[in-house]
């Protein structure tokens, strides 16, 4: 198993209700989440805003520390590992962010952006690895000299992907990475991701609110609602025979580009 997540709880202080003196009351974001993610799987995580999708992703990468339950990555319990132990492992699990404009340093060239994590993890042959990463995401090597603002949205998102795969991680978390893109760039990025998963044998968790994209890319789906898993299963089962009321509501709400769709 790439991930074994058991009864995961996570609460954060609710600063909007913090009294002037004293601690803020805690708000429970994840309320006992359990699932397995096998190696090589592509799992979609869906849910409305505030359902805990991103929080779950961040707990899996240990960008947030769970308040209960456990997360095993590749057999290691990482639930409460201290940061200096984690640092050595981080090369194995990487993240691609939603908004490439704010997750790429505007003052660094693409080459430097991709090389950053490689240097941090003291990898050898950094320039070669940068070039390989650019090749893999289908960007010309000359793009290493460009700045993020010189690129289109789709190209920037490819840089975000290149930065993640350059480290040759076993697992990648993609958090709403196509929601800011036009349909044409979205199609390109999804096709690229599909190809990379196949070629590099990646395990992928793909957070999205767009069920059409999930159906296209993922082989299994986790549906979250208010911090709980309301349904989990293969993509086919979830889409063809959704069991949970909430899953059906979500599916019914998607406007298909089809004038004959009956919008219940």
């Amino acid at each position, binding site marked *: 198993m790439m991930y074994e997540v058991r009864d995961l709880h996570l609460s954060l202080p609710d600063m909007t209700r913090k009294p002037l003196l004293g601690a803020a009351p805690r708000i429970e974001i994840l309320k006992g989440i359990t699932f397995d993610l096998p190696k090589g799987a592509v799992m979609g995580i869906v849910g*409305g*805003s505030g359902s805990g999708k991103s929080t779950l992703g961040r707990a899996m990468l240990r960008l947030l520390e769970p308040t209960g339950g456990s997360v095993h990555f590749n057999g290691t319990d990482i639930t409460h590992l201290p940061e200096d132990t984690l640092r050595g492992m981080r090369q194995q699990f990487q993240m691609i962010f939603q908004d490439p404009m704010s997750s790429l340093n505007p003052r660094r060239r693409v080459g430097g952006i991709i090389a950053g994590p490689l240097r941090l993890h003291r990898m050898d042959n950094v320039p070669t690895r940068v070039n390989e990463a650019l090749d893999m995401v289908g960007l010309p090597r000359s793009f290493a000299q460009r700045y993020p603002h010189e690129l289109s*949205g789709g190209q920037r998102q490819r840089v975000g992907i290149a930065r993640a795969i350059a480290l040759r991680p076993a697992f990648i978390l993609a958090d709403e990475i196509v929601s800011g893109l*036009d*349909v*044409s*760039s*979205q*199609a*390109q990025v*999804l*096709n690229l991701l599909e190809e990379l998963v196949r070629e590099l044998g990646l395990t992928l968790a793909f957070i999205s*609110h*767009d*069920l*059409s*994209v*999930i*159906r*296209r890319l993922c082989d299994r789906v986790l549906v979250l609602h208010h911090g709980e898993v309301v349904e989990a299963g293969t*993509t086919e089962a979830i*889409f063809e025979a959704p069991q949970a009321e909430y899953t059906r*509501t*979500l*599916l*019914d*709400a*998607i*406007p*298909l*580009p*089809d*004038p004959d*769709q009956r*919008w219940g």
Partner: protein
Amino acid sequence: MSAYLSIRNLCVALKTGTPILRSVSLNVDAGQVHALVGESGAGKSMIGKAVLGTLPRALTVTSGEIWLDGVNLLALHPANRRKLIGATAALIPQDPLTALNPSKRIGPQITRRLVDILGWSKRDAEARALDLLAEVHIPDPARVMRTYPHELSGGMRQRILIASAFAAEPKLIIADEPTTALDVTVQKQILRLIADMQARHNTALLFVTHDLGVVSKVSDTLSVLYAGKVVEDARMRRFFMRPIHPYSAALLAATPTYTDPTGSLTPVSDAVIELVEREVREHDLRASR
């Protein structure tokens, strides 16, 4: 001329001369919904802004006509134009949080326009606001009138902006990506609400969106834009059944649908891009002669 809003050969350019809208023509009848679709940067929002007279300072209308109920807006004195637009048109913006003033209560934000621009009495304006909040299904309108924007959810805020847009019974509403920031389940409610209000008030609606799924749910007719040029004008059903322009067909082929998991997702091909780019260049050449 029958259409309530009729845009003819509208050209908008940067002060430097770079074209932003290229001879855009379209008609929207009373009680009809016309969608503007295209990728980001295609100029969809700029058409709405040109009609409302809220183009960014760097842009100017270089030629063309915008007829609203038989009046050419561009021939009016700016002050008269603002008065006419204020009385007959309204906007439903994309982001309900930035469109509302965070430091003012909801009530005055809805009534201000009625009182200041249309000269209603405060009491009439408040009564109207209460009715409208009820019409957009906001529970306990009297309480909501006293709340601040941050106390409400995204869906609630968008309902308030819809109520606010319909407050002065406008004949034309421009909705600029009104559901892009919302969850699908909330989006469905809001789209229904807009369609419902539009039909009940017999409003002409110009609906800007990048989502072809949304287009198929709300619009009667649509224009597909590329680089500020209309590449296809169509009735909605015909567009989805038989798109005529290759770029329209390519946009449809790039849109994923969960009901068709095996269908290949095709980005807009270079050949199609070359074709529309050539059309754009030919247009510019004709325009410069």
